[in-house]
């Protein structure tokens, strides 16, 4: 495939989610360790439970699902299985993303930006966090902006989103939290990376790496 002509179809979407499940399983303890420092120490387990449940349901999809259909399955499964704040937050993100994807058979760069924007807006609508509240919004916000600025190459957009999300996650370290459990800690959250921002960056990095 040539850059600029590539689109992301349902099969790609499924490969991406399968790779996310594998990456989350691998990074489970690291995510949980972040959450132990400024939360309740379950973020890795929560996400792993959710994505393992997703894996078990992917075969129920049509043989050639739309990207939207995959995203919707991820959404409802995460909502039902994660058991922590990340469940409703990512669930809402994937659900709004699915709605933005609609019936499209594949996503070009413009459609990808629509999907990412809808996902971020879903997280913000659900959790009411502002930028710099030290949440996953601090990964998604920069990711959406970077993807939108990346032009009409969908792979460049994915790479830009991943890089911006990673930078956004790192940038949560000096912040005081104003949402989520870390907000109980006041200044003591300073110096720790937000687990949800980190897992968001991971999900987007895996997207950039999924062929």
């Amino acid at each position, binding site marked *: 495939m040539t850059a600029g002509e590539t689109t992301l179809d349902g099969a790609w979407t499924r490969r991406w989610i399968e790779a996310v499940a594998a990456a989350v399983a691998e990074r489970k303890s690291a995510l949980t360790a972040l959450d132990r420092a400024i939360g*309740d120490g*379950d973020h890795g387990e*929560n996400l792993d439970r959710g994505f393992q449940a997703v894996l078990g349901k992917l075969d129920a999809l049509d043989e050639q699902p739309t990207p939207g259909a995959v995203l919707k399955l991820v959404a409802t499964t995460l*909502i*039902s*299985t994660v*058991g*922590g*704040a990340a*469940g*409703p*937050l990512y*669930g*809402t993100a994937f659900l709004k993303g699915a709605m933005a994807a609609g019936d499209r058979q594949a996503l070009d760069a413009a459609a990808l930006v629509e999907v990412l924007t809808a996902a971020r807006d879903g997280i913000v609508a*659900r*959790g009411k966090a502002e930028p710099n509240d030290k949440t996953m919004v601090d990964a998604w916000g920069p990711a959406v902006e970077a993807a939108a600025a990346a032009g009409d190459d969908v792979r460049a957009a994915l790479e830009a989103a991943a890089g911006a999300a990673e930078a956004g996650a790192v940038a949560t370290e000096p912040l005081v939290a104003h*949402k*989520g*459990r870390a907000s109980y800690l006041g200044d003591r959250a300073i110096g720790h990376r937000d687990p949800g921002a980190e897992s968001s960056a991971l999900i987007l990095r895996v997207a950039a790496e999924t062929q």
Partner: protein
Amino acid sequence: MTVGLVIVSHSVRIAEGVVELAAQMAPSITMAAAGGTDDGGIGTSFDKVQAGFAGADSGDGVVVLCDLGSAVLTAETALDFAEAPERIRIADAPIVEGAVAAAVAAESGADLERVLAAAQDQAPAA
């Protein structure tokens, strides 16, 4: 008029305890305990909350009490999927104290908005 309550807690025991405590002063109110994850661990369960909405709403609506922030997120998400969201109110109130106040109001036949207000005003001390 009998408004129901749904108690959304991260802990099975808190949710069940709130129901038993509030039931003492409001024996005829339907209260659903939606505590813990699906397998009974610490966390929240969308499915338990959704079942609670259905189980506690007799047609006059339900007021939802939550403990921590992620319980509120779960309840709000369940609200998005609810069949009759117009009859569901998520209270901005402490879970135990709000539930007792709401239950007493519901027991007296108060309507949905009044039960919500009772939860959010809470009640005097000692």
